């Protein structure tokens, strides 16, 4: 414990206070702190997906005599899904570039295209799920299928939320313009959308490609 006589050595001279009114040497501005906080959330979301991936990896062969991954997955559809999501990620970037220049027309156009491509992805995925369930390969059939539907379904749920968010942002930009807090939200949305594409890269590689190797 430092004694009072050592106080000056520790920097407390009582002559001037270096305490700061919040804002001087305080935290960074909102436009830096908010995206960083959202990045931390996105990383935690990836930890969630890693748990689902780990379950899938463990149960990928537990097919209980039922349909296997080679029998169920169609690479053609997966290729279309992958391209849709990849291009939607690219177009989302273009939307951000337009938004930074407060260009209403192009921001809305590119956001709309992002949403449409995301919707294409989701439709293909829902079609795939529906046809699998129709031929008896639903999530209750085997542990492999349970873990498949959970993992890919969770990603699809994230994409759905992203689409709702894109729609909301388009409406917000239209009614409120490019104010700072709207821009921050747009930035968070684009981080989220790119992160979803990153997770899809892992999914199509591990689930669909490795799962259908000869």
């Amino acid at each position, binding site marked *: 414990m430092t004694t009072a006589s050592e106080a000056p050595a520790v920097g407390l001279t009582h002559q001037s206070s270096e305490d700061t009114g*919040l*804002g001087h040497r*305080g935290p960074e*501005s*909102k*436009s*830096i702190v908010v*995206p*960083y906080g959202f*990045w*931390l959330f996105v*990383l*935690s979301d*990836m*930890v969630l997906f*890693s*748990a689902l*991936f*780990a379950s899938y*990896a*463990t149960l990928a*062969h*537990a*097919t*209980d*005599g*039922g349909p296997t991954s080679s029998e169920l997955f169609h*690479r053609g559809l997966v*290729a279309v899904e*992958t*391209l849709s999501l*990849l*291009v939607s*990620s*690219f177009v989302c*970037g*273009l939307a951000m*570039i337009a938004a*930074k*220049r*407060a260009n209403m027309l192009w921001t809305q156009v590119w956001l709309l295209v992002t949403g449409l491509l995301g919707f294409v992805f989701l439709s293909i995925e829902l079609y795939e799920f529906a046809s699998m369930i129709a031929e008896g390969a639903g999530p209750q059939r085997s*542990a492999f299928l349970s873990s498949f539907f959970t993992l890919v379904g969770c990603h699809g749920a994230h994409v759905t939320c992203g689409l709702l968010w894109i729609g909301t942002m388009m409406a917000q930009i239209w009614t409120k313009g*490019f*104010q*700072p807090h709207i*821009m921050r939200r747009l*930035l968070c949305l684009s*981080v989220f959308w*790119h*992160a979803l*594409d*990153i997770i899809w*890269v*892992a999914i*199509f*590689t*591990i689930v669909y*490609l*490795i799962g*259908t190797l000869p």
Partner: protein
Amino acid sequence: MTDQDPELLNVAPGEPHDSMLSETLSYVIGLGLALVLTGVSFWVASTSVLWGPGVATGLVVLAIAQMGVHLVFFLHITSGPDNTNNVLALAFGVLIVFLVMIGTIFIMAHMNTNMGVSPELMNLQMQH
């Protein structure tokens, strides 16, 4: 915390560009590389270019490369001083993901071996 930032368009760290061309270029290059890597993945999975047992590893490597392309070109995770916090957070996230995945696979594989499950029961579980 007072927001002393008057600039409407101040963006997150890691975005040093100001010209529309260089910003767009970043996304175009990212898209190009990602398309190439995706194409190669699908190709590797369908031909016998790689030695059989190594195909899975090759695909994982390509996936990690493509994730890196996404991080750098779309998410602008660079090594600039403004970006240090983002990189540190990412490194921690990767560590946890790595631990969860490798740890689970390791434990489950060894558990199955060590439990000495009878062949019939094992067959019921694992069908290929």
